[in-house]
């Protein structure tokens, strides 16, 4: 069984590795309420930790700092300040928008964490850290974070 086998070609081979995922994402009670408020009332809600008082948006069930279970919802104005951003200028599969477009992290007023979303109605070369932003909601909403179309500069 130890003979050499020169007859097997060394031709380089490329294979298509076929993969398909179809995850069912369950947003849970906390995520559902957050998305429902956006969908039904165009409201962005945060959740407040009873131990340290931090307000999280997007909300989560437990505070990652003190592990307290959170149940106190805080209605936010939706307005906030830009803390970070990036401009996507190339195209690849599954981008939710046609490039070029900008992602930003928006620190909402009365909240202690930032939320990532798109920036719109803004010149991509004139985006500034600290600029004031407000949400623009889609007309037809379906219970998704993309029910917020984007954040635009606040007047």
């Amino acid at each position, binding site marked *: *069984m*130890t*003979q*050499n*086998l020169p007859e*097997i*070609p*060394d*031709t*380089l*081979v*490329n*294979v*298509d*590795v*076929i*993969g*398909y*995922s*179809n*995850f*069912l*994402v*369950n*947003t*849970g*009670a*906390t*995520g*559902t*309420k957050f*998305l*429902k408020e956006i969908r039904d009332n165009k409201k962005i809600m945060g959740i*407040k930790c009873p131990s340290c008082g931090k307000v999280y948006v997007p909300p989560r069930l437990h505070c990652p700092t003190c592990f307290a279970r959170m*149940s*106190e*919802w*805080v*209605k936010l104005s939706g307005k906030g300040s830009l803390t970070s951003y990036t401009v996507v200028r190339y195209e690849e*599969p*599954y981008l939710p928008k046609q490039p070029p477009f900008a992602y930003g992290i928006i620190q909402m007023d*009365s909240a202690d964490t930032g939320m990532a979303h798109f920036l719109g109605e803004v010149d991509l070369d004139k985006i500034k850290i600290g600029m004031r932003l407000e949400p623009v909601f889609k007309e037809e909403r379906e*219970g*998704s974070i993309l029910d917020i179309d984007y954040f635009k500069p606040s007047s």
Partner: protein
Amino acid sequence: MTTEQKQDPEFIQFRYPRDVTYHHALGYQSKFANGLKQGRILATKCPVDGRCTIPPRIVCPMHHVRQTEWVDQGQRGRLISAFKINFPMFNSRTGELQTWENPIIAVELEGGARMDGWCMETDTSKLKTGMLLEAVWRPEEERQGRADDIMYWKPIEE
């Protein structure tokens, strides 16, 4: 400005379908793939201790020396271990839940290398470590140089 959380009968779920097909350049392992297309199992052999490895490696992971010799591993092997998945799992090629009737096995080939595969025998009570197995190949025109060109390993009488 605050509201209390109440029990809500609606839970939002959404599907996240993604096609993650990609092109994989096999490089050094191309010879292994070409062998599979011809219905043969090749392994690389370490020049230090003669250990054969599948999938083939350009460098022996034990002795860190280049492996240039390819060895035909034959069509038969002996069962090392077997397990069966008794609950549905996602098929990564379709994204759908699927049950798997055939046990997944490890085989030590006649040439000394070890590899994984599917066992044709679905009744695990009939599987014994050390039993002789033979590769069952896809028809030649269907082989793509992939490990699943070997459809199953079939137990055979000694």
